[in-house]
């Protein structure tokens, strides 16, 4: 088993922890953080492939990650602002209670 396999397995683990958290927790903040974890797992993959992969271009994986981090920051800001707005509206942030946005 090469280091690349190991790294990918670690990122799979992180991804699945994030997924399980997002699916299981009722607190919207934690769901959002689970999604952040999944993003981080993807970033780990980028770095792993950059480090151990055959890519000839130096720095491309890092740049992918940098952009992903920037977008994740934006996503977190907007998501948490939405959560605060939802909280102000329905006085709690249980995800299963915010079901009014349906047909």
């Amino acid at each position: 088993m090469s280091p690349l396999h190991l790294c990918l397995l670690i990122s799979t683990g992180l991804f699945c922890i994030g997924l399980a958290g997002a699916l299981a927790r009722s607190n919207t903040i934690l769901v959002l953080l689970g999604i952040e974890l999944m993003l981080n797992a993807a970033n780990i993959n980028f770095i792993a492939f950059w480090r151990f992969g055959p890519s000839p271009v130096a720095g491309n994986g890092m740049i992918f990650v940098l952009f992903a981090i920037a977008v994740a920051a934006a996503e977190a800001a907007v998501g948490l602002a939405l959560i605060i707005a939802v909280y102000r509206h329905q006085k709690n942030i249980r995800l299963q209670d915010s079901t009014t946005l349906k047909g």
Partner: protein
Amino acid sequence: MTLSAQSLWLIPALPLLAAAIGAISARKNRSIAAGSAILAMSISFVLSCLALNGALLAPANHAFFNFDWFDLGATTVRLGFLLDPLTAFMCVMVTFVGTLIFIFSLGYMKEDANFKQFFCFLSFFAAAMLGLLIANSLLLLFICWELVGLASYLLIGFWFHKPSAAAAAKKAFITTRIGDLGLLLGILWLYDSSGSLLFYDGGHGVLELATLTSLSGQTLACGLAASTAIGLLIFCGAVGKSGQFPLHVWLPDAMEGPTPVSALIHAATMVAAGVFLVARVYPLMSADALLAAVPVHALTVVAFIGAITALMGALIACAQNDIKRVLAFSTVSQLGYMMLALGVGSWTAAIFHLLTHAFFKALLFLGAGSVIHAAHHEQDIRSLGGLRTKMKVTFANFAIGMMALSGVPFLFSGFWSKEAILHAAHGWNVSSLPLYAGLAAVVLTAFYMTRLIAETFFGKARSEHAEHAHENSAVMTLPLVILAVCAMALSFLAWPSPWLQHQLDPELQIETSGHGLMILSIILVGAGLSLGWWIYGRKLRQTVQQRDPLNHAAPAVMAALANRLGFDELYAGTVGRVNTLTAAFANALDRWVIGGLVNFLAHLGVFSGGVNRQIDEDNLNGGFDRVSASIRGSGQRYSKAQTGEAHGYLRVIAIAFIVLALALVMGGVR
């Protein structure tokens, strides 16, 4: 320092700019609109003076600047500016009188809610008139001519909430349109036959010898020269605009507008446009007399129309009771004088009278406006009276204007200009009738002006409003004083020598026919004044209801005159009746013939629609309804999957992801 013909456009451009500023400024922002209007007019006045200075350096020269407007196929439509003494004098007069009227309006319109709009319209009016004056092209002149008409429509109908004002505006617009139709036909004919509309174009213009010769050389089937016909058509426009005999009916009604508007229309801008037009195209009008042997000359028609108008206006003015209407009919009469002068061949005398008349008529109107403003919009002279002591400044100035209009000798400019006209009429060798009409009008003018002064200013106040009248503020009286000074000072344009006429036409030879005519006219003026004072001044009116002394003497004549000789009824009875009948016929045609056809078609459509509907509902819709009901049902069942629960969605995505990944792994896709 002079202003070249090329930069002449600045003179109308400034008021136009002021109008634009007034149009876009806020409604309550009164000072910007008024200030920019007055400032623009003042600067235009200065520029006009510069232009006059340049024009007087070479009076015989017609400086022009022509440019291409647009290309129309092979031909190019050209416009141009013209600078000669006629233009320059007119510009100076219009801007000067206009500025004073604008200033007067500051006070007169102070309480009006649409103050800003008023100044916007005034500037627009002045700009259109100035554009008309500087035009070197009949086309540009016509454009500005129509803009003047539009502006006058807006201003006469300024108090449009009054039905009479709205009607008057409409009447003025439509009546002048009739004349303008003639003008337009004349322009088209002229363009057709000469290929140009420029007045002066270095030998190719319509007022230059080559074109005039060819035009007067063509003889039409009816025996007229082409230039005569074109001139008469153009004269139609002047008749409409200047309120000459058949089309004079709009002018008195235009009194419905605010008084500064009346002053502007009657003194400086609108009615002067007609006289100016004829003076401008005078070479064309007079071409047939010089170059062709035809039975009727265009100018002869002009002279007779003018004579009729002068006499008729003066007669009707004697029987009017509204202060502004008296002045309006006096304007009609004076315009008749000018036309008479044009007709008898002395266009310089006409322009001289136009200038002097502009000043004293503006003075009279503004004085009337001052009275009206002070008397809370009481305009009936029977209800006024006794204002002499209450409004001393206004009275003095009004009296100066009245004497100038009546032609009181020597000191007043009106006397000299009227003398010039009478001399010209005396020298006309076609007919003496215009001279007699002019002399009769002299007596009548003095008479009705004396009546106006006596009724308005003497005696005692005969109504509540007149009782409480008091002198207006300086912003209204100051223009009066300036105009009064000018009304007297303009005498020096003709005395001791006819300087103005020489400047306008350096080749003019003024025949001195002795002083007999002058003495006769002085006697006639004296007779008119004393007659007026004998009838109205000796026993001053005591009550509003008291009958007019002349009504005792000739009730039928006076009633007819008060009714303006029934022109309005005549037009209503003829033109209006024909119009109504035609309309009724058209209505019947529309209702029964065309309407019947349409109704038949509609019924046909309804019937076929009914048949169609039956087929549609039973056969087509049934099937579609069933299909769509089943779609709707399945959609409703399917929409139950949308729970709104984010966890569920996430779960479904994850499971779908597993399935996809499994498919990829099993399928061996790398």
